[in-house]
């Protein structure tokens, strides 16, 4: 004898529940098909529910006055014979409103990772936006290999292929024949991303560089004092602190050029990108809210970021969102300075050279002083020479006024 549970059907086109008025049977009662089991009241009517099966009532579910949801158990009956029982494979009873397919039926395939639509289009496959970008950047789409599904050309493909507008690029040539001994290095991953970013910078930002030398005596004295107190510190945190201070006075250097709206966005926060040479290439982890941090905090966090960058352990958040960038130019060897490249979409990159003894004129005397070069490259759309000079002057001033 199979025990089956009769659940409450939708008695009237979309009802969700019914209130049990009274039972007409009790556990142990023998019932025939269609014998009245109970009375329920719905939003529309009082309805007598007949038994779907013949058999013995095992359990009645619910008390008079209780509200029973559609689909909830009403009565459990030990069916008298298989003929009265639910046929095999029969799905959920139909009177329960609109039903979802049950076992043995079919349903729509759930959303999954979409396989790229196999388009039968011939010729260049690129979306309108990508074509527009190619036009802007002067890219010949027929010469671009698409990295999208089915060989579609993506925006990244176009950006990667872009040539700078103000440099007459070589006409597209047939690939050079391999010469003996030539080495071909595959460009993928980070290297490719760096290349893209560089291209973007030089092809979209008109930039110029200004140079200055600052007297690092005060900075070095402060460093010594810190080291004696058991807190060794590199020059970098001082550079960052000075940069932040200079930005406070000239906030336009902490901005971004918004091409699409013809606006300069002056950033409120100061997130300093720190260019780091890693075995994988140049990475720029980001010191967030540098203007809220003390020197010690800057030192501690920046050194963690640098370590993390070298170790490849930083999160995407650590790697994005910078509003101004600092970089080493000539950290070692005979290199004095260089022309750093602005990190788009920023306005200014500050390059600090190595601190070493150099001849400087102090009180009309030539002396050997600890000093270093600073070079700033700026977006000429936002910053003109005058402002660049002021900013650089402020930077020098901050660095030379460091107290231990």
């Amino acid at each position, binding site marked *: 004898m199979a025990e089956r549970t009769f659940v409450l059907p939708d008695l009237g086109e979309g009802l969700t529940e019914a209130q049990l008025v009274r039972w007409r049977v009790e556990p142990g009662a023998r019932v025939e098909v269609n014998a009245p089991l109970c009375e329920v009241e719905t939003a529309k009517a009082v309805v007598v529910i007949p038994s779907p099966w013949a058999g013995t009532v095992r359990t009645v579910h619910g008390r008079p006055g209780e509200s029973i949801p559609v689909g909830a158990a009403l009565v459990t009956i030990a069916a008298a014979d298989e003929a009265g029982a639910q046929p095999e494979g029969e799905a959920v009873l139909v009177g329960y409103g609109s039903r979802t397919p049950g076992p043995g039926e079919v349903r729509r395939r759930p959303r999954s990772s979409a396989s790229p639509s196999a*388009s039968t289009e011939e010729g*260049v*496959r690129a*979306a*309108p936006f990508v*074509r*527009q970008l190619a*036009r802007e950047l002067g890219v010949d789409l027929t010469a671009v290999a698409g990295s999208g599904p089915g060989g579609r050309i993506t925006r990244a493909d176009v950006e990667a292929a872009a040539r700078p507008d103000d440099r007459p690029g070589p006409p597209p040539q047939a690939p050079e024949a391999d010469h003996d001994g030539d080495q071909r290095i595959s460009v993928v991953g980070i290297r490719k991303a760096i290349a893209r970013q560089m291209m973007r910078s030089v092809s979209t930002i008109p930039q110029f560089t200004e140079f200055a030398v600052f007297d690092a005596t005060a900075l070095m004295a402060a460093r010594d004092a810190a080291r004696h107190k058991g807190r060794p510190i590199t020059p970098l945190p001082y550079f960052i602190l000075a940069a932040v201070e200079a930005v406070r006075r000239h906030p336009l250097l902490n901005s971004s050029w918004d091409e699409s709206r013809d606006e300069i966005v002056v950033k409120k926060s100061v997130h300093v990108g720190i260019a780091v040479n890693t075995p994988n290439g140049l990475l720029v982890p980001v010191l967030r809210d540098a203007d809220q941090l003390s020197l010690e905090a800057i030192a501690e966090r920046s050194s963690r970021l640098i370590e993390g960058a070298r170790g490849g352990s930083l999160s995407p958040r650590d790697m994005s969102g910078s509003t101004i960038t600092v970089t080493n130019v000539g950290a070692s060897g005979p290199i004095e300075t260089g022309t750093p490249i602005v990190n788009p979409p920023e306005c200014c990159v500050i390059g600090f050279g190595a601190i070493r003894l150099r001849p400087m004129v102090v009180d009309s005397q030539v002396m050997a002083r600890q000093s270093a070069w600073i070079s700033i490259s700026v977006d000429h759309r936002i910053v003109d020479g005058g402002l660049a000079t002021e900013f650089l002057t402020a930077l020098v001033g901050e660095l030379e006024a460091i107290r231990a």
Partner: protein
Amino acid sequence: MSAVTLGKAITQGLRDALAADAKVLVFGEDVGRLGGVFRITDGLQRDFGEDRVFDTPLAESAIIGIAVGLALRGFRAVPEIQFDGFIYPAFEQIVSHVAKYENRSGLPLPITIRVPFGGNIGAIEHHSESPEAYFAHTAGLKVVAPARPSDAYGLLRTAIAGDDPVIFFEPKARYYLKEEMDLPVPPLPLGRARVAREGTAVTVVAYGPMVETALRAAEAAAEEGTSVEVIDLRSLAPLDVETLVTSVRKTHRAVVVHEAPVFCGFGAEVAARLSHDAFDSLEAPVIRLGGLNVPYPPSRFEKLYLPDADRILQAVDESVAYG
């Protein structure tokens, strides 16, 4: 070969259909004795008798309702709705029954509902409507709109001989359009658009009365040095997407034009299909032209309401100028 008007091509199509199959019946208001308010059924009652070509009472819903009954009985019903604006009383019979009877019963329903449609004839209210989108949107119906006499004949013969219901929209403003041809021409399968004029710069998609207008616009464009390709859809449901996509792959630009209001008009389906199926080929967004989103105006203003060759050219310019 002689010059045959679109109206006469339809008359001949009805005549040949009546002659070819004794089960074909033509009926509607004033189609028998009068020969129809546009004379499209002229002479048919005289030649085929009152049992086969007959006038009905003034009752659009019943005209279509009895067409259902006759079709179920085994006849090929060709009812006429006298004017586009009067199809609405029959709307229920069409969408609830004509469109669904096969689904309900498995039985074929050979009904061809003829409807003169469109404006530009200086008419009073309700005589210039373009209701084709309501029916193209209804599953179970086939919807066609010929633009030239040979297609009117070919599509009509196919529609009447077919076992599915067809709404046959006749561009009343083009009843007098002539074409050099010898009738009969072969039946034209539904679902095939045609390239009415080849071009390379922009595809203009049109149907019914707008095809002529599009062709004139294309001629003017050619004189200005722009090569416009004109597609005559001929069939709205089923829609010949392949021809459209092939064209846009070549031209990369599309303008679709109809008399019906732009908002939710048939052009929206064409534009959406092209955006999806020819996305990578498009160099400009698909431009839709149509009537203003207002009730069809008093005839004095219909020229301001309806698209014309000039507006088509403007849209072509806009498309080309997109870059």
